[in-house]
Every structure is written in C-alpha cells, then in structure tokens.
C-alpha cells in the first residue's frame, strides 16, 4: 500500500470513529429533549447522562484527530477546503462550542431548563447537517475555481437535490445510531422503562435511515456518475451493509442480543462508509484534488504513521480502560457506583 492510501485509510477510520461516537452524542441530545417534551424525560435522562458524562470530551477529540490528520497528510487540501468552507465551517464550530460547553455548564453546574434542552437537542441535529456539507462538496460541482481563487457556490449547494439527500441521511442516521446504542445501554442498565421508550425510537428511525440511504444512492447517480459507477464496483459492501441493517433491527425487534445488534449497526455503517470512501478515491475533492497531488512529503508521512502507531499503543489501553469502567461495568451502568 502506498503512503497516500495508508494516510487516507487512517483518516477515514477516525472519521468513522467520530461518526459513531458523535452520532450517539448528537442523537442523545435530541432524545433528551423529545422525552422531556413528551413527559418521559426523567426516565430517559438518567441512562443518557450515565453514558455521556465521562466520554463527551473524548468524542470531541475524534473530530480534532481527523482534522489534524487531514492537514498533516494532505496539507494542500487545506487550501481548497479552508477557503471554501469559511462560513459553513465557522457555523459548525460555533454550534459545537455552544453544545460542548453548555453540556458541561449544565452538567457540572446547575440543572438546566427546557429551553436549554431545546438548544442542546437542536444543535445535535444542526451539527451533523453542517458537517455533512464537507462530504457533499467533496463530490464536486459546488466549488468555483477562478484562477487560484476558490469559492463556494451557495446557489448550487442549496438548490442541489444531492446535498439535501446527504443532509437528510446524516440527520436520520444520527438518530438511528444513537437510539440503537441507548437501547442497548438501557437494557444493560436493567432500566425497563427507558429501554421500552428507546427501543421504540430505534425501530422508528430505522425506516427513514434505510430510505435516505437509497435516496443518496439515487441522487449520486445523477450528480456524480463517475463516483456512482465506482460504487457499483464495490456493491457487495453495500449489500452486506443492508444485511447488517436487517440483522440489527431484527434483534432489537425481538428484544434479544442487543450488544450484537449494536455491533451490527456499527458494521452496517462501516461497510457503507468504507465502500463510499473507497469508491471516492483517488479524489479528495472531485475533480480538483486527489490523494496524490495534495500529499505531504514522504518523510513527514512516515513520521506521522510511526507517531500514529506509537500513539495507538497509548490510546487503545486507555480507551479500553474507559470502556471497562463505564460501558462494560454492570454496576456502574446500573447506577450502583
């Protein structure tokens, strides 16, 4: 494998990690609010907070990791995306900042009111929508190049069927992933009340998720037929993804093997995400930037890969410890510690 491919694989893996952990977080904010409005807040909130409090900061790091890796491995990409994304990027940062700090303010400070929960829930859906713009514009057609000057074509972006399909998929899959995870967590906690509610959410959001996935496929064939053709080449990955989806929903429906069902959810998104990513190569920004012409020098690439491996030796045991204490420790999950 060339350094370029290793680099983009590492980054894609981190983006995938962020997709999962952030979805749980973002969706939880929405359910938190929705449950409060429908008068079931106290049942659900306990489970949500037990999981989120110790890990919310770690969730944030995944995003930074991806970003730093991206500019590290592909510095000249920073020029294109940096210039074009000033406005949507800044808005996403502001939303993330408000959300993160107000989670901490609320949680460690004073208990917030409904208005705060609305803000928390709303940002949880707006952030994935604004972040998904990066993936949308990577398909090409939304960036205007004028000499060396780069700008984002808002008209094209906001009127495009494809970009709205991606936003829709981002939002519904956030809700679906989150609900599936929380169902598993509530079940583990032995919290029958929360489990019943969250299971309903999970089943409810499964249909829109799979519909939105097909919608994106369809929109893609229209917007970027080259990418679509390459995705058909790896269509087995998407078939696999669909089978994992069916398996996950089946177990949730049957109320059994919920741990396995969440693993299926992760695999469902992993196969689709890597399939999409692999078909996107070699382009990082279609058709202007490929992984080859924006890649950093070889020395830096090797150093980054080495430091990445060294860092993993430190991170994996630490993450394992974190999960053992707060995810696999039944007494903690059940609220006894």
């Amino acid at each position, binding site marked *: 494998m060339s350094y370029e491919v290793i680099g983009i694989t590492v980054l894609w893996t981190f983006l995938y990690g962020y997709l999962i952990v952030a979805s749980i977080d973002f969706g939880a904010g929405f359910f938190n609010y929705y449950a409060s409005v429908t008068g079931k807040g106290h049942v659900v909130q306990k489970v949500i907070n037990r999981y989120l409090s110790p890990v919310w900061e770690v969730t944030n790091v995944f995003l930074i990791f991806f970003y730093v890796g991206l500019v590290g491995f592909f510095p000249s990409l*920073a020029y294109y995306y940096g210039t074009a994304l000033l406005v949507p990027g800044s808005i996403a940062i502001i939303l993330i900042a408000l959300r993160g700090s107000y989670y901490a303010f609320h949680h460690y400070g004073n208990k917030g009111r409904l208005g705060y929960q609305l803000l928390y829930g709303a940002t949880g859906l707006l952030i994935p929508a604004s972040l998904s713009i990066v993936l949308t514009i990577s398909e090409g057609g939304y960036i205007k190049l004028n000499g060396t000057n780069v700008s984002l074509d808002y008209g094209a972006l906001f009127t495009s069927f494809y970009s709205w399909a991606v936003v829709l998929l981002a939002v519904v899959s956030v809700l679906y992933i989150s609900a599936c995870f929380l169902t598993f967590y509530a079940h583990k906690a032995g919290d029958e009340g929360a489990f019943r509610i969250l299971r309903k959410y999970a089943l409810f959001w499964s249909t829109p998720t799979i519909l939105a996935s097909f919608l994106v496929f369809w929109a893609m064939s229209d917007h970027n037929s080259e990418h679509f053709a390459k995705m058909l080449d790896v269509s087995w990955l998407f078939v696999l993804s669909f089978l994992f989806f069916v398996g996950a929903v089946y177990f949730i429906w049957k109320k059994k093997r919920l741990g396995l069902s969440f693993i299926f959810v992760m695999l469902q998104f992993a196969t689709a995400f890597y399939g999409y990513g692999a078909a996107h190569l070699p382009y990082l920004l279609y058709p202007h930037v490929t992984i080859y012409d924006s890649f950093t020098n070889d020395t830096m690439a090797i150093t980054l890969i080495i430091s990445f491996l060294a*860092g993993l030796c430190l991170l994996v045991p630490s993450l394992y410890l974190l999960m053992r204490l707060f995810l696999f420790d039944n007494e903690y999950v059940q609220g006894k510690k």
Partner: protein
Amino acid sequence: MINEKAVFFSRVLMETTLTFHIIYATLGVGVPIFIMIAQWVGIRKNDEHYILMARRWTRGYVVSVAVGVVTGTALGLQLTLLWPNFMGLAGNIIALPLFLETFAFFFEAIFLGIYLYTWDRFEDQRKHLLLLVPVAIGGSLSATFITIVNSIMNSPQGFDIANGEIINVNPILAMFNPAMPTKVAHVVITAYMTAAFVLAAIAAFRLLKGSWHIYHKKALFLTLKLGLIFSIATAIIGDFSGKYLANYQPEKLAAAEWHFDTRAQASLVMWGLLNKETEEVSYALKIPYGLSILAHWDPNSIVIGLDQFKENLRPPLYIHYLFDSMVTIGMLLVGLSFIYWIGKKLKWKWVNSKIYLWLIILSGPLSVIAVETGWWLTEVGRQPWVLRGIMRTSEAATTNENVNLMLILFSLLYLILGVGTIVVMTRMFKKYPVEKEIEDRMLEKGGVNS
C-alpha cells in the same frame, strides 16, 4: 492576490480567539498540577482538607476545561479556515507536533473522564492520585507540543524551499528549533504560576469574605509557596528567552526595547514614551548595561538595533508596553509571594491583613494579564511574518469576503461562553461553600478527621 480586508479581519479574529482561549488553556495546564499536589499532600499528611481541596479545584477545573476544549477546537479549525495558504505550505512542517498535541490531549481527556466519575469508587486515595498523573502530564505535554508548533513559526528550520515548494523535510529537526526550549519552558512554567496565583486569589477572597476556615489558610499557603517557586523559575526562563531573541530574532527584542541603534553597553528601557519622529524616549526608567546583560550576559556586548532592518520588516513599536507589563507583573508576583512566605515563617501579622489579602486577590487577574501581554508580545513581535523569513502574514490569509461576519459571530460566542463560565462557577462555589461540604463529608465518613 491579497485581500487586505480579509487579512485584517483574519488577524483580529485569530487574536480574539487566542486571547479568549489562552485564559482557559493556561488554567487547564496549570490547575491539574495543583490538584495532583493537593491530593498527594493529603495522602502524605493524612489530611482530609487537602483531598477536599483537590476535589473542589477539580470541579472548577472541569468547567474551564470544557470551554478550553471547545475554543481549542475552534482555534485548530480556524488555522485552516482563516490561513489556508499558511496551512497549505506549513502543514508540511508543523504536522508532526500538531498531531502529537492531539494525542496528548486525547490521553488527558480519557483520564479526566475516569478521574471525575470514579471519585467514590476506590477506597484507596492513592488510586485517585494515580489517575491524576496522566491528566497532569497530558495537559503539560499538549502545551509543549502546541508551543512547538508556534516556535516553528518563529524559527523555521528543518527543510529547504525550491520554487515555492517545501522539500527535504526533517520533522524532528523542525521541532527542535532554537526557539523551542525557552518557549516551551516559559509557557509551561507560566501556566503553573498563573494557576498558583489564581487559586491563591480564590483562597484569599474567601478569607477576606470572613470565612476563617483553616481549609482556606492551608490552600493559601500551599498555592503561594508554589507560586513563589514558579514565579522565580518564570523570571529565570524569561531571561533565557531574552538571550534567544537577541541571537535569533533580534528585531523582536529591539522593537520591544525601543533599541534603535546597534551598539554595545545598551541600556534596558522600562516604560516611558516614544517620539516616533526623533526615535527619542522620554520619562523612561533606564537601567544602564541592562539590555546587553539581558541579551548576552555581558555588559559590553553589542545588541542589534532596529537600524539593521528595513522599515517594512520591523514589528510594531507598541509591543514595548506589552513587554513592560509582562515583566513588571512578573516581578510584582515574585515579591508578593516571597513576602508572604517570609512573613508566615517569621509570623508577621500584617501578611494576614485585609490589605495584603486584597493584593493577593489582585495577583490572580494580574497573572492572567501577564500571560495575555506575553502572548501578544510574542505574536505581534513576529510581524510582518507568519513564518519568519519565509511567508508574510498578508500572504497567508484567506481571500474569503466573509471574515468580518465570522468575527462578529465568534465574538458573540466568546461573550456567551465567558458569561456562562462566570455564572456557573459562582453558583457552584457560592451555593456550596467548603464549610458545608466538610460537614457533609464528615457525616458520610462518620466524623473521622478534623
């Protein structure tokens, strides 16, 4: 193609973000050291008060970490959004320390989460101390790596440039550049120092408000004693930083010192007013030979002046006041903590007086101001370069038309976060003073210990 308006607003926005972020970042690096020390002292002396101190500091610390994390995220992404040309070029050199910083941060985040949510899970306090070690190390390491990124901008090395492209990169050599040792040491030590005086100010404030609990006295003595050590260390490292500047970035030192003519036996100028036309300084306190000693350890040494640099390559001259503020505050803090320490040893009554407590309270905000002025000095003193000698700031900025709008949005964000922090912190500690918490914990423990 340079967009002057975008350059200007990019600089203002970056400065606003940094200025806001470093308050939280500095405390984020410094405070965990104190939490760790308090926990350690508590275990060693078997004194519940110090353990409680560690916990109360942690509660405040978590709020500041939260804002530090989100503004740090903003800062990281703004590097690319506001300075795409800079990142496109410098990304080839600064990627490694930037990457390592993220690792250190990740490490800290994981263990902070564990520490916070296992407070009453282990009987053995030593286990809690062990969890604090990676938090403190992670904080200091991320400060180290991010300062290395900044030192590369001041003193770029470890690569060649051919046709505007960076080649022959040596990432390790780039990290260990001449600016790195003094910069890293100065940043880390001043973070400890700032945390010491901020925590001391809080203790002094509680004492002044009439809570004469032994807990606050212990906190005050511990933090000021460490504050003395860290402020002396800061002064020594500051002196080394001056010597670095004299050798590698003489224009920054010359502008900070209003040193126009290259000459031997140069005197150090403190404060004063400058007549820009005649380049004459009035009302200043001049220390003969001071600058030569600061620059090269030798009163007869030659110090390079601004005359060696073209007009358009000189940093702005107002950085002199930033330099003076930083140094003056640093000196005051050394004096303040030294007198308190001596006074406690010799049992002078007046170090407990209201006036002295007020001075200690002032030392908290003053040390934060010193950090701000220090960073403004180092950043503005690098102008007009973003990568010294290689890329001008004006060439690095975005060409996007909307930076001014973003400036407004981000300023609003920082306003909200700033007010939020103050409100949450006040509620947190006012509603639950230490007397109440000691009472609660004693009930829990069945009344052991004092």
